[in-house]
Every structure is written in C-alpha cells, then in structure tokens.
C-alpha cells in the first residue's frame, strides 16, 4: 500500500517524466487511498509542473518534453477532477486566446496548461480569436483576467483593441489584461495598456498570481 507521500511523489514524477499512463495510475491510487483529490492535484501534479516550468526556464526541458508533461497532467486530472469537491472560494479565472489574425498557439497552450495546473479556471478561446469574443467571454464568465498572445507583428496591436473595448464597456477596472508571445515585451504591454507581460509560461503563472494579489 502506497503512502500519501509516495502517491504525491509518484504523481509529480509521472508529470515530470511526461508519462500519462503512469500519472493516471497514481491518480487512481490517490483515490483508492481516499486521499483528497484536490490535494493530489495541487501537491502532486502541481509540484511536478512547477519543476517542469523551472526546467524549461533553465533550458533543461524543451517543447517536446513539456508537451508530454502536459499529457501526463491532463491524464491525472481526468481521473481526479470528478472527485474534487467544490472549493469554498470562487477560483480565479482567465479567458485565454491567440489574437485575431494569428494562429500560432503552442505558447498559449503551454500557458493554459500551467495555469490549469495551478488550479486556475481557464476559458480557452483558441486561436484567431476576434476582439469582441475576449470581452464577451470575460463578461459571461466573470473572468478576472484576459490573457492574449501573438507571434506576429502584423497582429499584435489588435490586443490594444481588446483593452479599448474593455474600457468602452466599463469593464477595465474589473478585468485585468496579460499579454505574451515572441514579439511582445514589457514595453509593448505598457503601450497597449495591459497590466502584465510574461516572457514564458512560468512567468505567466507568476504574473497571474501577482494580478490576483493586486500587486
């Protein structure tokens, strides 16, 4: 019989190793051991994803390995999710997508995964997302943050249209805005009136947490 520590370590390792079959087994073991599913997610999978993020930043993990980790994470989450009791507080939420005209979404998908691993509710609008769709979805879901990305200079400034639309609709104080993607920068974020910029997925999670704390 595995101990609680074994299970959490097993989940973390399976995520780091990018093995969806093994992560599923450990998730099931967590349930069999009557562990709290939320704890298994946050203290097992999430810890694994933190290591993945740190290794990516440090240059010891790369896109193929991260994508495998994502599969392992989602595989465990599929097992655990039905047993996660509704938390007493409303989870932070984000509407995420690649801005209109652009379809490069690999970075956005990695950010999405890292946020989900941090128990953030993510509404993923996909790629080539029209300006108004971001605002409409944020309104509909009461999202805390809109996160947008672009890989092209020809499309990046459309992010400003989303910020402008939030202002026009009186939502700017309520909805924070994060931007990312290869051509973007802190200067670009300031230029379009965004609240935060993140250079990669690990930084995106940190930036999101900062926004939630109002820092």
């Amino acid at each position, binding site marked *: 019989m595995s101990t609680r520590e074994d299970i959490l370590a097993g989940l973390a390792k399976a995520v780091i190793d990018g093995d969806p079959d093994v992560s599923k087994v450990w998730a099931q073991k967590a349930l069999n051991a009557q562990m709290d599913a939320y704890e298994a997610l946050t203290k097992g999978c999430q810890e694994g994803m933190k290591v993945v993020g740190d290794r*990516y930043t440090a*240059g010891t993990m*790369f*896109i*193929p390995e991260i*994508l*495998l980790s994502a*599969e392992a994470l989602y595989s465990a989450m599929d097992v655990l999710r039905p047993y996660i009791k509704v938390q007493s507080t409303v989870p932070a939420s984000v509407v995420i997508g690649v801005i209109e*005209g652009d*379809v*490069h*979404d*690999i970075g956005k*998908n990695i950010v999405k995964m890292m946020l989900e691993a941090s128990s953030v509710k993510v509404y993923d609008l996909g*790629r*080539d997302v029209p300006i108004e769709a971001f605002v409409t979805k944020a309104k509909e879901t009461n999202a805390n943050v809109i996160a947008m990305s672009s890989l*092209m*200079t*020809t*499309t*990046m400034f459309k992010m400003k249209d989303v910020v402008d639309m939030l202002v026009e609709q009186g939502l700017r104080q309520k909805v924070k805005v994060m931007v990312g993607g*290869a*051509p*973007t*920068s802190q*200067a*670009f974020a300031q*230029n379009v009136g965004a609240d935060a910029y993140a250079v*990669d997925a690990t930084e995106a999670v940190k930036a999101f947490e900062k926004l939630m704390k109002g820092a």
Partner: protein
Amino acid sequence: MPEKTSLERVVDALSFRESDRVPAGPLVCGASRRVLGITYAQWAKKPELTAKSLIQAQKLLGFDGFLLLTDLSVECEAWGQKVDYPMESTPITMAFKGDPLIKTVEDYEKLEWVDAKKATRMKNSVQVASTVAKEKGKEVAIMGFVYGPAGVLSMMRTLEKMSLDLKRNPSAVKKALKVVNDVLLDYTVQQIEAGVHAIVLDVLFASRFIWSRPVYDEFEGQFCVKLSDECHKRNVPVILHNCGNATYFDTMTKWYNPLGISFHYLPDGISSLEELKEKWGKKVVLLGMMDNPNVLYMGDEDLVLRESKKQIDALAAGGGFLLCSGCEFPPNASLLNAKAMVDACKMYNPYKKT
C-alpha cells in the same frame, strides 16, 4: 575614392574586411509591397510583382542586400498543404488553422518526392530570384531563402503535434524529413542556378526554447546538412537564419559551417553584444540584431538610429558584421525605420579613415 556598390560592401563584410561602411540589411520582404502599392496576397502570389516590389524598395531605401523570403509556407505548398493568404498579413499554413496535410502519424509515410520545379510557390520564388538577379545582381547582394526540413514539415503538421510525434514515432517523422529534405535540395539548387549570391537556411528549431541540441541533431541537423553541403560544393556562401531565443550557435556551426548567422536574440550562453563579438565575431559573420517588435515596429527613426549605433559600436570592428533586422523587417512597420537603419550605417562609420 568612389563609393563601393552594395554587393562589394557585403562581400567585404562577409570576408571579415572593413569596407567603406557597415552594410545595412533591414531584410525588407513583405513590407516592400507597400512601395509598389499592392496587397500582401498579391505580393505573395504574383512573382513579377514580388520582384518589382523588392527592387523598388531597394531603390527607395538603399539597403545593401535582398533577402528573397516570401513567407514560411512557400515550401509546404508543394505537397498540397493549403495556405491562407490574408489581404494585409503574412500568408500562413492552414495547418495552424486546424487543416494540416499530415493529420495522422500514418500520413508522414505518405509524403512523396515532388518536383520543386512544378510546385507553384517554389517555382514562383525561383522566378523572383531570377528576375532580381538579372536586374540587380551586379550591384546588390541577393540571398535566396530555404526553410529547413523540420520547419517545413511542421507547416504540414504543427510544431506541437510534430514534437510529440518525434518522441513517439521517430521513424515516421524521419522518413518524412528525408523526403522533404530531398525536395529542398532541388529547391536550393534552383535558387543558386537562378543567380542568388548566397543561400539563407532558416533553422529555427535550433533554440533552447524549442528543441534540445540532441533532438535538433537527430531531427534536422543530419538531414539539413545536405543542403549546406551542396552550397559549399558550389562555392555558394551559406548564411543561417534563426530568430528564436537562445539559439545554438555551436550546434548550427557544427552542422552547416556557415559563413554567417542572422539572428534576433543573443545566442544561448551569451549575455552581451561584447561577449558575442569576442566569442563568435571571428568565427562567423554576424547579421543582426535589430529588435523587430520593440525598435523597428514600435519605435521611431530616432530610436532606430540609437540602437543601430549601439550595435555598430559593439559589433562592427574588423568587419564581419552586417546591421540587419533580427527577422524579416516587420511587414506593417514604418518604412522610415528601414531607411533609418541605412542612414545609421552612413552616419556611424567606424571604418572611415580620418
């Protein structure tokens, strides 16, 4: 002494000689359509207009080298990958919009050799090369462009799917890479025969933020080296382009023995322009590294002049440097910023004998 031609100036830089000034290469490609007054879609589809735009842009701005890049979806079209042509943005593979040619792992095995001469977009690019070479080849440097095999394959599958496939089905991916590379070899030769002075190989995945060095070696280096070998055999200079972050200069030079590297960000393990010059400035010609989004797109002429001076000061001594944009000049940026790069090379001239 008469001013050198652009071509002479570039040859000096590529030979590690101090010329009459630093050559300017803002890599104006799609942006040239605005000189001729046509849409992006027209520019990308009609080779006679592409060539005319590029030639007019060079006449207007005075840059020292043409980069014959249309977009990264030129090669993949040869296999039937659908491409979207927005009116005012860069053409893009429909694989990124949910319609990849390679839908399953089995589809890798179905890729077959195709005749580059008959593929519409590659044929058009060769026509552009031929026209530009005929009209400007004696005065201005002309660089052909080939996207590496891994990049081309990703345009038919997506990088995300391909990165997973190479972990789970490496042999299927490699089989397709070989097929793609064989066609790219023909395409490279055709551009050389059309009269380009150098070939730029885009090896984007040799970056710490995309693939590890061993994965790069296995899934691009061992194939793409045939393209650089062919160029070397024909005495055509090889220039690598990689606008990714933290690129592997060591891995890229190991495989391709390039004369120069065109780059946007500092390479992996290098933390300053000075360190870059010291470690790499005598091994490869440096083509860079004006910041596309922050300087060339969002900035104004003053900022471009300041940044250009900074780079000339740090990198130009002894030749072996071309002031270039880190990637294709932003297609919708102010053309005055491209001109400012040329002006900067004239104003800040470390080679001028006093």
